């Protein structure tokens, strides 16, 4: 069974992002970039399926600027077998990413694609479901457990009220939730080995996909600041304030 994982290069989750002065977007110059945390979980899950003898090959795919190759190398160092880089400097939105991933799926014919449940930059939570739709496949979104048996997958999903389990016919798309696994760190020898692994490069044109953004960003603003910092001395003052000043209890 072949597994494709999608890994997005995003601003590191520890960075406090800043809106550009001209309100056109977010400052990305000299900002630390990392693999989207949910995609680390996706890579880890694929590697575990490989180690369990269920997956035969794990292919890490990233789409975007030249430096996405670094994100692919990270996935290779974690244990993915080879990489695919769809290279473009244009902005890619979820529907375009899903179409490009579909083109890759048609070439590679995987039985499973694992993506993050959400990219922590655009917070869209769309790509996996869109890919599943375009392929006509079933989807196991927000997965906290993945089990594969005789061409079927049992996926435990995190839903608003608790947990839900569904059974899906392969091939499938899985989107990862935080508690699916804990991603490993790449060891130094594996980082060295990863340098020799193969990364194929395509452009959106090579794949015959029109990746033009459908959604125009008119402006980006800072959210209105919150005036915090007030203190109370003890619980008596707290209850008094909540009751008589804020009127919320």
């Amino acid at each position, binding site marked *: 069974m072949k597994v494709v994982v999608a890994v997005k290069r995003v601003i590191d989750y520890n960075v406090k992002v800043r809106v550009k002065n001209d309100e056109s977007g977010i400052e990305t110059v000299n900002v630390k970039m990392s693999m989207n945390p949910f995609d680390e979980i996706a890579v880890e899950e694929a590697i575990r399926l490989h180690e369990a003898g269920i997956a035969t090959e794990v292919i890490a795919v990233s789409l975007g600027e030249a430096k996405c190759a670094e994100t692919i190398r990270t996935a290779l160092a974690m244990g993915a077998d080879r990489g695919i880089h769809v290279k473009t400097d244009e902005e890619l939105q979820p529907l375009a990413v899903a179409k490009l991933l579909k083109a890759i799926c048609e070439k590679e014919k995987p039985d499973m694609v694992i993506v993050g449940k959400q990219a922590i930059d655009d917070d869209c939570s*769309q790509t996996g479901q869109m890919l599943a739709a375009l392929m006509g496949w079933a989807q196991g979104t927000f997965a906290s457990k993945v089990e594969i048996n005789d061409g079927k997958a049992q996926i435990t999903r995190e839903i608003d009220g608790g947990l839900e389990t569904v059974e899906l016919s392969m091939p499938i798309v899985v989107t990862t939730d935080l508690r699916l696994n804990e991603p490993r760190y790449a060891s130094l020898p594996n980082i060295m080995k990863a340098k020799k692994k193969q990364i194929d490069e395509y452009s959106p044109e090579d794949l015959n996909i029109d990746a033009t953004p459908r959604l125009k960003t008119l402006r980006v603003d800072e*959210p209105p600041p*919150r005036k915090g910092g007030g203190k109370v001395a003890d619980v008596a003052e707290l*209850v008094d304030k909540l009751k008589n000043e804020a009127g*919320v209890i």
Partner: protein
Amino acid sequence: MSVLVIAEHDNHEIKGATLNTVTAAIALGAGDIEVLVAGQNCQTVAEQATAINGISKVRMVDNGLYGNGLAEPFAALVVGLAKDYTHILLSHTTSGKNVAPRVAALLDVVQVSDIMEVQSSNTFVRPIYAGNALATVQADDPKLVITVRSTAFEKAEISDEQVTIETLGAGDNPEISSFVGQELTRSERPELTSARIVVSGGRGMQSGDNFHLVEAVADKIGAGVGASRAAVDAGYVPNDYQVGQTGKIVAPELYVAVGISGAIQHLAGMKDSKVIVAINKDEEAPIFQVADYGLVGDLFEELPALTSELEKQGIKPR
């Protein structure tokens, strides 16, 4: 042309978030609003929906295919109905997020996720980077699929008049998925996303057992109980308690954060609350920067003291 709102429900009761989504639909000013209730034995839900103010029709599909909200058949059904609508709206809940992108991709149109404001029928404000920035976005596709942040819109009112129910047949069954089971967290307390007050515990709680200290306070003021990711990951409380960028977004009148440091991912889920209280022993904790009332202290002393103070001052759940 008109707007379709997909109702969220459990076959018995319509979920409150649907009412917020209807308000967003009204704000579009894009024509009549119809509500789709698809489920199994969902007649009572459809009847509840008929009384939502501002809608013109309820369309009901009562079929076993939709009993558990599986995305594959559900999206196929919505796509089959899509030609009548310029906008298709769902709540930005786990079920809305599961279905909406599937619908958008099958229609080859853009999805606008988690909108917080409607500026016009094609221009919206939505949070990016965990709400650390707000993007104003415009979509020119002939049809739009939209998910709505419930806490950013009021609930539509319930009227005395009722619109009609149109019954429809089932759509295609892709036959690629089936429902196995559910394990729902049972609680007598108010549901997190709609609670008027939320009290959340973090890693500072140290164990699941200690959460009874949070619950004692919550019960005095009629609050729902939430948690940080660290508390959930440590197994103190179930997964669906998580408040934050990747958990639930809440905006209650009062949010009380106990033993929570205030990471941006947590703030993303609660910083739109009207009043924020933080109890933390570290006076440098970032949570204090957003708190209206910060109490520096050890939660193991402060929580029992707070419970008795609420008792003493005669505070009751509203």
